[in-house]
């Protein structure tokens, strides 16, 4: 019992430490890659190739003045960034990063926990993640903030449906709600090959769910002047920012587990034990790179276009996909 507890606590500490580190460096990566896409350098001054930039940004955020608007709802205003970052970090608890390995004669699994309803847990937390954004905009008593919040709420509720429906076809193919088992069904054929449409839809809905370009409606610098976090400064703003990137990374990890075969190489090529974690990381990196790349490519959709896309295209497509998958799965079985 005690060693189990110690192992768990150590794992949690390691995973969250690494996660925060990765979150910090994703911001660096994003700025560098965006820079290169726009034929410029991006931050390359602080430290070698700008590698200390996240640290500098963190320090700056820490020492900036913390402003609370006079007519803000103080409690909710302070609570919102916390509500935003906690679910974002908690999602990582169920994500498997790799298989197990032996250490000091113990079998250590590369995940904090394996719940057999991991997917539902993720969807549930995704639902909670909305509150931070919604309440943040409302509490700061700012029209732009409120508009951003309302848009976020509507957008997230809409895309959560398509997201959930897309997941169902994956569940039908894999026959499990546990991420580990879903990964283990993909040793030969990744779900991305079995379910190309679902993969595509999940990618789009996922981007909309984490409010990433081209669906970054809640922020929409040009029209809403940064939307929900307009009044936030200092560490509170940094928390929103970190939550955003934590969401980005967890989305990449979830897609890796669901569609890209987790830590397995494609087409049944045997994966040596040592290579499993690097393979997983490589896939996550490719996805994160893709997210940055598409941010540098696509312009933001208009709000009504986003809603139309979600309800009139993605939802029916996801439903059709479930139907076809159901027919095929039944026919095969």
């Amino acid at each position, binding site marked *: 019992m005690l060693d189990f507890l110690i192992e768990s606590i150590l794992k949690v500490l390691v995973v969250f430490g690494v996660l925060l580190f990765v979150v910090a460096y994703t911001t660096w990566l994003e700025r560098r890659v965006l820079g290169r896409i726009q034929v410029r350098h991006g931050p390359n001054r602080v430290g070698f190739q700008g590698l200390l930039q996240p640290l500098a940004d963190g320090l700056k955020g820490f020492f900036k003045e913390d402003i609370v608007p006079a007519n803000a709802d103080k409690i909710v205003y302070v609570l919102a960034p916390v509500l935003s970052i906690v679910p974002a970090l908690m999602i990582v608890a169920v994500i498997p990063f790799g298989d197990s390995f032996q250490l000091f004669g113990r079998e250590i699994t590369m995940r904090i926990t394996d719940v*057999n*309803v991991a997917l*539902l847990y993720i969807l549930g937390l995704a639902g*909670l993640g909305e509150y931070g954004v919604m309440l943040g905009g409302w509490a700061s008593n700012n029209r732009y903030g409120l508009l951003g919040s309302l848009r976020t709420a509507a957008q997230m509720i809409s895309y959560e449906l398509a997201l959930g429906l897309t997941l169902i076809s994956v569940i039908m193919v894999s026959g499990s709600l546990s991420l580990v088992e879903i990964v283990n069904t993909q040793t030969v054929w990744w779900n991305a090959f079995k379910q190309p449409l679902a993969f595509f839809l999940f990618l789009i809905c996922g981007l909309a769910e984490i409010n990433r370009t081209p669906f970054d409606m809640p922020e929409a610098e040009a029209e809403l002047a940064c939307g929900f976090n307009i009044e936030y400064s200092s560490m509170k703003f940094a928390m929103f920012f970190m939550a955003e990137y934590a969401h980005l990374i967890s989305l990449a990890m979830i897609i890796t587990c669901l569609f890209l075969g987790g830590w397995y190489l494609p087409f049944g090529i045997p994966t040596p034990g040592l290579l499993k974690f690097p393979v997983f990381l490589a896939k996550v990196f490719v996805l994160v790179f893709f997210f940055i790349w598409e941010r540098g490519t696509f312009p933001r959709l208009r709000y009504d276009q986003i809603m139309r896309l979600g309800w009139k295209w993605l939802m029916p497509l996801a439903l059709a996909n479930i139907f076809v998958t159901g027919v095929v799965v039944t026919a095969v079985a």
Partner: protein
Amino acid sequence: MTLAIFFVFAAFAVLGGIGVLLARNPIHSALSLVGTMVSLAGIYLLHHAEFIFAIQLMVYAGAIMTLIVFVIMLLDVRHEEAETERLGFAKVFGMVLAGLMVVVLLVPLAAGLTGKPGGMTEEVLARVGSVEFLSEKLFTTYLLPFEIASVLLLVGLVGAVALAKKRL
């Protein structure tokens, strides 16, 4: 250990419930209710109901409460509760009755629970998992209620659109 966690969750749930009652601002009420729901989700987990835990977070905390918060924000009813609420005789009487009802609810507990045990033992759960077990029942024995529930949802959807849309 489990009991301690239960008490923490229970305390949060009751505090949230009281918060719903006492908060002047509807948003604060809604937030308290979300707190209650999340705590209840934790308690469900302690009661081996993983599926209910997940859909509690997803449906209640994620969807229903988001909708309520959305409407509160949309209508901007934040300052309308400012006037004093009269605590008339009827209300006090009602509260006394509510208290009595809690007592009545608690009475059968002392008598103990009678009922037929179902098939969901630890071994069954270990073999098939609660989600599988639940869905199997749902799609065989309880298929008709399930379909009725889906029709109910559809009716709710159509009703909500018909009511709230200005022009159909």
